[in-house]
């Protein structure tokens, strides 16, 4: 995967409510982050959303984008993890 370094995974946990996907997608649009894939599931009573994005052509660095997402998640009372995809690729494949 030659371009995997620019891929990030955003994982959001919390009580399900309207507008979560839209709120995060708005941030991605603002920073010109390409959303490549979305998946969601429920774990016990919690809503969990996974978003795979590419920040190669974004107009800001990883850190700025991550902070914006963290801030938004906090406002929505959701827990969010923003991580480079490489950590999952490394950990779960031989």
């Amino acid at each position, binding site marked *: 995967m030659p371009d995997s370094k620019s891929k990030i995974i955003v994982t959001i946990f919390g009580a399900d409510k309207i507008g979560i996907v839209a709120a995060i997608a708005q941030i991605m649009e603002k920073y010109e982050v390409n959303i490549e894939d979305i*998946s969601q599931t429920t774990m016990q009573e919690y809503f969990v959303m996974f978003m795979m994005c590419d920040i190669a052509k974004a107009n800001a660095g990883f850190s700025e984008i991550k902070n914006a997402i963290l801030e938004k998640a906090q406002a929505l009372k959701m827990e969010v993890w923003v*991580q480079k995809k490489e950590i999952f690729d490394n*950990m*779960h494949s031989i």
Partner: protein
Amino acid sequence: MFNFKVDDILQTINMIKMHHLDIRTVTLSLSLRDCISTDVNETSQKIYEKITNYAKNLANYAQQVEEEYSIPIVNKRIAVTPISLIGESAKNPDYVLLAKTLDEAAKAVNVDFIGGFGALVEKGCTKGDDLLLQAIPEALAKTSRVCSSVNIASSKAGINMKAVLRMGQIVKKAAELTAEADGIGAAKLVVFCNVPSDNPFMAGAFHGYGEPECSLNIGVSGPGVVRAALCQLPKEADFGVVANKIKSIAYKITSTGELVGRDLAKRLQIPFGVIDLSLAPTPAQGDSVANILEAMGLERTGAHGTTAALALLNDAVKKGGTMATSYVGGLSGAFIPVSEDAGMIEAVEKGALHLDKLEAMTSVCSVGIDMVAIPGDTPAHTISGIIADEMAIGMINKKTTAVRVIPVPNKGVGDYAFYGGLLGEAPIMPVNKFDNSVFINRSGRIPAPIHSLNN
């Protein structure tokens, strides 16, 4: 087509969030051989400049990597060439000054610890080694981030019993000079047999003679992750299943360390060195090596069977970890410090674990008698005896062993020593009170063992 597995993501996050998966340390290993001078003040200046230059970005870049992968990097550290060698050529030697220089440089670049204030004296001391050993207690009392290690035995050279005698006295003095902090000086001092030259863990990290100019060594962690995985196994799972489970978790832990190490080394523009595959506990609940042994089916660590459980764990960690990285080094195995492991502390409190059992356990895992608090009135020759026994285990079994005991001033069995942070707290353990002074005072060396007739 969704090209990632959500279960993998959840597992990774769970390992970090619930089970304390972290990178214990990123350690910049740096040669100071070009800092040698005939004037100790010039040596000191060169050391300060070299360290602050090479490590100026270590803490910042480590923080960036931490943020990008959302994996905590607990400590940033530096390991340098044994200082005995660096200070030896000075006409006005002053090893305490060099320790202070290391401390100031460590503070300037915001690293947690700096190791290498030490010497390799398994066969004997040079003049510089002698002076450094003499300076250790004061150096550790007057600095906060400097760690000291002394190698006094090896499978090829035997045990330097004169150094064993001296180290008992030095450990005692290091504790006494830091009496107000429960003898923390001795918590920053470790005595080794067969010391590895690329270990990123403290107090034993230093930059060995065969190492390159500099490199980045990584110490991974994750006892909590292993424990959690074993807890999910049914009680009747056989040892093949247990070993395989540990191997697969060790692989995951190590591959994360490899990723972080390579990324950080690239940012620092220095070569990636090794991953140390150690399971290093922290005082946090559940992040305990003792709890792993208990998850295998022992009521408490220290019960008969503990050494066997630890042997399985230590070997499986190495087998799983080596698959995940190109270069393995350092201590690589399970650590069994007492003060840094809530499960070990509990085992001591319940009367399940004693010094003798700990000694037996060190014959099958990495390192040795580690972070054990003993009564402050323990005679120096008794400490030397503990050291001699540990050195013998390492020498005969061709493995690394070490001793880091703290004779806690003005405290006795039943009391606690408090250090805080990663060093934790320790119940003071009793030592054998019978006299060994004639044996310890004999001096000379215990000859290296014959390497055939292995019985």
